């Protein structure tokens, strides 16, 4: 750098410093005085500042909203979890209440049954593709039960103990084709034989009864007769859904739908002793049930 340039540089720098001091002194004396340049700078700067401030505010609002959303999302998640937990608890409570109600009804059945009974849990079911139970498994077995014992639910007849193995037993349902129960139509007092007709996809039984066909109508309830020494008298078995029309022949048939929903069974009662023998003179009356279940009339 040449001396002349050095001098020029120094002079310019000095000019800047002196100019600053002069401007400062002038400004201190007249603080509110703005020249043309000041006004221009401020006029240009003001919209820029406004735009930047607006952007900043928008960003701040966005950030606050984001935090709010994050907070709300967390709260929402917590509420969902609480809701799921409470739903599960409610479901468990409802199931417990249902189980207790079932037990009450079972107890009522037990106290009203003349025969000695044993309560049992349904621990397994043979479920086929159509969700029909063809066979039940109970948690009572050898030493307590033996094949042929009647199995009842509060609604009515379930079936009979088919086989016993270890601590468990299988129940032959009333709708099983191997099952046959002596029954009565309470409305007419007519007797018949209820044979299981259910395949693996339906719960049906066939009632075989003596003519005339008018002895049975659709909607008639079918109860046990008490004969045979297995089931007590007047235990509901099912309801007639269709009556067959056979012009010739001694026996007529009707389709019967069981009163027990086998798929929903949780607890049952097994008659471990035979019910008291049927008294012939009381048979026609059929007014008071022997086992405590109100019969369908």
């Amino acid at each position, binding site marked *: 750098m040449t001396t002349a340039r050095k001098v020029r*540089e120094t002079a310019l*720098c000095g000019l800047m410093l002196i100019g600053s001091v002069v*401007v400062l002194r002038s400004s201190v004396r007249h603080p509110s005085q703005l020249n043309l340049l*000041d006004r221009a700078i*401020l006029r240009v700067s003001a919209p820029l500042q406004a735009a930047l401030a607006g952007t*900043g505010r928008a960003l701040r609002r966005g950030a606050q909203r984001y935090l709010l959303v994050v907070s709300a999302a967390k709260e929402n998640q917590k509420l969902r979890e609480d809701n799921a937990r409470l739903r599960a608890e409610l479901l468990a409570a409802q199931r417990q209440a249902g189980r207790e109600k079932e037990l009450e009804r079972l107890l009522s059945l037990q106290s009203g049954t003349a025969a000695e009974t044993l309560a049992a849990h349904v621990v397994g079911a043979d479920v086929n593709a159509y969700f029909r139970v063809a066979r039940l498994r109970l948690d009572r077995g050898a030493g307590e039960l033996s094949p042929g014992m009647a199995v009842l639910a509060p609604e009515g007849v379930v079936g009979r103990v088919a086989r016993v193995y270890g601590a468990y037993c299988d129940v032959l349902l009333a709708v099983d084709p191997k099952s046959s129960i002596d029954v009565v139509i309470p409305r007419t007092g007519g007797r018949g034989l209820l044979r299981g007709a259910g395949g693996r996809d339906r719960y049906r039984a066939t009632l075989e009864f003596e003519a005339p066909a008018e002895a049975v109508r659709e909607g008639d309830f079918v109860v046990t007769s008490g004969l045979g020494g297995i089931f007590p008298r007047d235990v509901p078995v099912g309801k007639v859904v269709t009556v067959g029309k056979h012009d010739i022949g001694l026996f007529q048939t009707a389709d019967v739908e069981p009163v027990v929903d086998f798929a929903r069974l949780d607890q049952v009662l097994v008659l471990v002793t035979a019910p008291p023998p049927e008294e012939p003179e009381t048979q026609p009356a059929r007014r008071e049930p022997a086992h405590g279940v109100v019969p369908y009339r």
Partner: protein
Amino acid sequence: MRPGRHLVLVVVGYMLTVLQASLQALVPVRVRVPELGLLVALYAGLTARGGVAGASAVAFALGYVTDLLAGAPKGLHALVFVLMCLLAKGASLRLLLRGSLVSAGFAFAASLSAAGLIVLTRAQTESGTLAPLQMAPLQAAVTALAAPIVYGLLGRLEGRVAKAHAPGLGR
């Protein structure tokens, strides 16, 4: 002296000063905003090649704008920025001011010095107090943190401008 470079520095410095003023209006009083205008003035001084008159002019302009936007007496920041620019030029001649840490350290010292000068000058000219000096270390620290970013930004801009003005290069 390179007028194009200085013009870029003035424009960018002006934008950063406006940004600084806007940020200051948005954040709470306790939150400090880096002195971006001062950093540009320091950069002008640190990177001045040959003469320092152009860098001083940049510092003066930015100081003047800062005075207007900050509502300070006109010439106060202008004087301080020019002094800091000259200090930076002197430091760059005697010290090896390279690297983020060193440049941040120098920015801290310069910001602290500027604060001292401003407060003292105001105390002299407007019967102000020295109380604002309490905020100076924090303000200097924030400015020092922003220094490497601002210097980096200015360096890139300067590089692009230099490339655009170089005849026959990049075409």
